[in-house]
């Protein structure tokens, strides 16, 4: 029997649990040249804001041990250009489309989400209430349970399809924030966004990125992400999309066992842009070897001591 890789989150069906993470696949155009996007469960766009943003000046990335720092600063085309230039391309792709939305004020989030409501092919919105790279909004939202609840519930009023809350790891209790999001009416969680970090050039004594601090991502953070996925899985009931340091099918399986229903691949795309294709193949092989028929048989099945 062929293992069935499809999963379903908040009524949306995905061909497989492998998505590309926001900010790590642009609007899909470049990856589509490299592999058919139909290979993905979903593509999650770069964060879209109301106005176009250039982001921070260069340098805005730095290499770290098994990871990287970025302070791109939410560079994106803005909702107008996204709607006219990017959605037509995305609508043609045979994969689910999740649009990640960010802003510095709640009103901006709402306006962007309201605009997106008109596009049926935008299957879900992922609310980035956890970006460490903007001064206002962003992480502050995601560190405050009240703001989290409010932002989700307001967005739910203007966007009729499912809304995912993307949670920040830079908090004392991610479960507390997850519960607030659940309270606000979120349909799923994305866990996690990047950790806050920095790096210094010891020759010039200057920080390596112009924003002085940035988001740490990549394999380095995988243990933290797995733990947070499992903490949220244990205490909340919404489906979870696991994110953080995924490089292989083995990593995906760890996330599924911890309680994720799907996963996103981010930083690793920079090193292997067609990684999702490899992962899908390896995941299928694993399921065959372990005689698993469906992804469900893995979700949350970690055995604890």
């Amino acid at each position: 029997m062929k293992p069935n890789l499809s999963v379903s989150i908040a009524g949306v069906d995905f061909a497989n649990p492998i998505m590309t993470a926001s900010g790590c696949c642009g609007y899909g155009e470049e990856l589509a040249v490299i592999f058919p996007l139909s290979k993905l469960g979903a593509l999650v766009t770069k964060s879209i804001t109301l106005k176009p943003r250039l982001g921070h000046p260069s340098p805005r990335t730095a290499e770290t041990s098994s990871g990287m720092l970025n302070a791109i600063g939410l560079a994106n085309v803005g909702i107008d250009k996204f709607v006219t230039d990017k959605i037509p391309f995305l609508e043609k792709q045979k994969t689910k489309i999740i649009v990640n939305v960010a802003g510095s004020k709640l009103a901006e989030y709402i306006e962007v989400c309201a605009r997106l409501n008109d596009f049926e092919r935008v299957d879900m919105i992922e609310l980035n209430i956890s970006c460490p790279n903007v001064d206002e909004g962003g992480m502050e939202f995601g560190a405050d349970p009240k703001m989290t609840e409010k932002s989700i519930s307001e967005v739910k009023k203007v966007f009729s399809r499912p809304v995912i809350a993307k949670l920040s790891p830079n908090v004392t209790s991610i479960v507390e924030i997850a519960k607030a999001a659940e309270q606000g009416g979120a349909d799923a969680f994305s866990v996690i966004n990047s950790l806050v970090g920095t790096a210094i050039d010891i020759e010039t004594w200057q920080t390596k990125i112009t924003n002085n601090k940035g988001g740490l991502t990549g394999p380095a953070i995988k243990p933290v992400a797995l733990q947070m996925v499992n903490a949220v899985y244990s205490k909340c009931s919404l489906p979870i999309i696991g994110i953080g340091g995924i490089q292989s099918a083995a990593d995906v399986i760890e996330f599924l066992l911890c309680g994720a229903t799907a996963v996103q691949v981010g930083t690793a795309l920079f090193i292997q842009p067609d990684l999702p294709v490899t992962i899908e193949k390896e995941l299928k092989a694993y399921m065959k070897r372990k005689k698993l028929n469906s992804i469900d048989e893995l979700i949350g099945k970690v055995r604890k001591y």
Partner: protein
Amino acid sequence: MIKPTADDALLVRKRDLKNNYYSITFKPFTSAKKCKPGHFIQLQIPKTDIFFRRPMSIASVSSDGDIEVIFNVVGRGTKLLANLEKNDTVNILGPLGSSFSNPKKNEEVVIIAGGVGFPPLMYFATELVKSKFPAKQIHFFYGGRSKDDILEKSRIKKLGLNFYPITEDGTFGEKGLVTKPVERFINENEKSKLRIYSCGPTGMLKAANEIGKKYNIPGELSLEAPMPCGVGICLGCIVELEKGGHARVCAEGPVFQIGEVKL
């Protein structure tokens, strides 16, 4: 964007070019036939503790698909590359980025090269000569601090083009910076027939850009930036455009028009 491929390729040739420069040649590379001068590849040494790939310009592609890069050891990654031996495996992702556009038949090609900007321009000149573009219309200005910075002299000479080595200490060719002989050349020639191609240290690129703008000579500059991905998806390699906004060095570049970017 050309569809890049990722291949585990074997190191088939390694040459120590002295002064911390190396030439290494790999094979097989599926997309060898698609490579054009200006394109780069992203190299990954499997199982190292180096996280990102390292971008390298293509220095040559042989008729049977061997792909060569020439590099300078500047840090951890290039050090590891220099330590590779024959039959070691490297994963190559490419070809990536934009390439140099061809000059018009009657144009005089002014190449301004320096440091690790030399390899793509050598590739460019080689392909021009191969394509029957008259070698005497190619003027290869190649600057370095000292004679050991001027690589592959015989290879350039063999192309039969006009070779103008320039060294800061005068140990090889003319003494000084490339700017002076280039400007002299420009002033001695019909400006409307010239086209500039430059790749090298920031100072040299700035000078080439300024010269192009000053004399109204079109041309292309190949830029560098730290590149986490090389395929346009991370937005980490941006450069500011004169008209405002950003461009990705790996996707819109590395080859830009003179006057297009803020340097």
